[in-house]
């Protein structure tokens, strides 16, 4: 028998009629289902998170490529299909990037708010699914203990934890050393203080330029209106600071400030 697992014309025709055109090969879905269920089985307590959505049909549609997968959680396993021939209880639709961002985001609402992901139907189901998937926390040491026994697994676990801590510490130290070298020894990068001072100077310069621009503008307008040049009232009081001149800009008639 042929191991050809793809859907043939009949099912493809059906998909075109009902769901979008691109069908993920059934063998890939079967493999994904097996892998995901093996992962869920590693955290039996976390798996209970799926309980509120047992038997719910959750469709995820990837815009652009038009692929659809359907998830149906159950007490025995999470079933994954391509197009499932029933109206989903909850349809999550989004661009590949939007869906990936939502999967990774801590606050899923923000992705929904941005409009890159849409949810149709019962949104509580999507929330429960996200919570259940996010709540899976596999105790690898415990899994290892089943294979190697508690003492060995514990030692390995300690080893891994020490290695992770060492890695974190080393990364921190390395970062600080590199920073110091680049700033102080090599003078390749400015230090924090130099940078702050430089940024403050840039701000001052920008303000000065704006003030100068305003003053030049005012003078130019004054030059265009020779009739207004002999207004004696403003003379004498017109000694305004550059800042005030900038604030009043063009409204300040007369050459007083000049």
């Amino acid at each position, binding site marked *: *028998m042929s191991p050809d697992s793809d859907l043939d014309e009949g099912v493809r025709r059906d998909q075109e009629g009902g769901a979008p055109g691109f069908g993920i090969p059934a063998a890939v879905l*079967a493999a994904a289902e097996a892998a995901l269920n093996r992962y869920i089985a590693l955290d039996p307590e976390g798996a209970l998170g799926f309980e509120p959505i047992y038997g719910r049909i959750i469709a995820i549609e990837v815009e652009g490529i038009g692929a659809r997968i359907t998830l149906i959680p159950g007490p025995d*396993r999470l079933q994954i299909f391509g*197009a499932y021939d029933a109206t989903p209880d909850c349809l999550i639709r989004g661009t590949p990037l939007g869906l990936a961002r939502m999967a990774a985001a801590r606050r899923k609402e923000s992705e929904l708010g941005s409009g890159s992901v849409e949810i149709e139907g019962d949104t509580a189901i999507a929330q429960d699914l996200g919570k259940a998937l996010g709540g899976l926390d596999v105790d690898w040491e415990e899994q290892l203990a089943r294979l190697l026994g508690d003492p060995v697994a514990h030692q390995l676990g300690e080893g891994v934890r020490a290695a992770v801590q060492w890695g974190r510490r080393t990364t921190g130290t390395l970062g600080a050393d590199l920073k110091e070298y680049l700033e102080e020894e090599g003078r390749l990068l400015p230090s924090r203080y130099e940078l702050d001072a430089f940024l403050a100077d840039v701000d001052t310069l920008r303000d000065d330029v704006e003030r100068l621009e305003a003053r030049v503008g005012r003078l130019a307008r004054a030059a265009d209106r020779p009739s207004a040049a002999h207004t004696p009232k403003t003379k004498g009081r017109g000694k305004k600071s550059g800042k005030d001149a900038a604030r009043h800009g063009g409204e300040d008639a007369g050459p007083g400030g000049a």
Partner: protein
Amino acid sequence: MSEKETTHFGYQQVPVDEKVGRVRQVFDSVASRYDLMNDLMSLGVHRIWKRQTVALAGVRRGQQVLDLASGTGDLAERFAGIVGADGAVVMSDINAAMLTQGRDRLIDKGRVGNLHFALANAEQLPFASGSFDCVTIGFGLRNVTHKERALTEMQRVLRPGGRALILEFSHPTTRALSRVYDLYSFSVLPNLGRLIAKDAESYQYLAESIRMHPDQETLRAMMEEAGFERCDYFNLSGGIVAIHRGYKL
């Protein structure tokens, strides 16, 4: 002229009332290694064919499902996970050895609560009319003596709006595939049967019975005859297997 009515049993003609017994013998013989043989025979693809059947059935939470010729219960197990505690799945087979195998396997896996078991002949179903939202029969219809009676019964026990799905070996759609398939069925398959299930004859029968089974269009016509509507079929693996679907409206 008192010739008895005969029917086919593989390529042989046998008296009608003998077929049930003979099919039983075949399945009694293969029951204990049925799963392993299925995997070997189809190179594991039978699991994918069953997945497609479940996807096309579109069963929902709370529905009632009848799985005929359930065998070791692959379809029933998936349905039970979907219909949940509010729904029910009846696993049925005419063969006690097969049904016991299936029941033991599912109980051992902890699949209990919404699964029920019925030793029943698909030609005379012991259920009230309009009891199920979905009726399926996976790799079983070709072993039924009077297929049209089984189809009529499937239609009877469905509720209006319910659907029946028939997953069965069918006829390859291309000649090249057909040749390879014949070679496989009549040379490789009986030898596999001899090696694994220690029973070449049963697997010879399986290969023959597949050839005697009606092709896609004929089966669709039979479904319409039995009262199903909106009948269609889906070829899988180049027509080696087909899923027929019909609704009771």
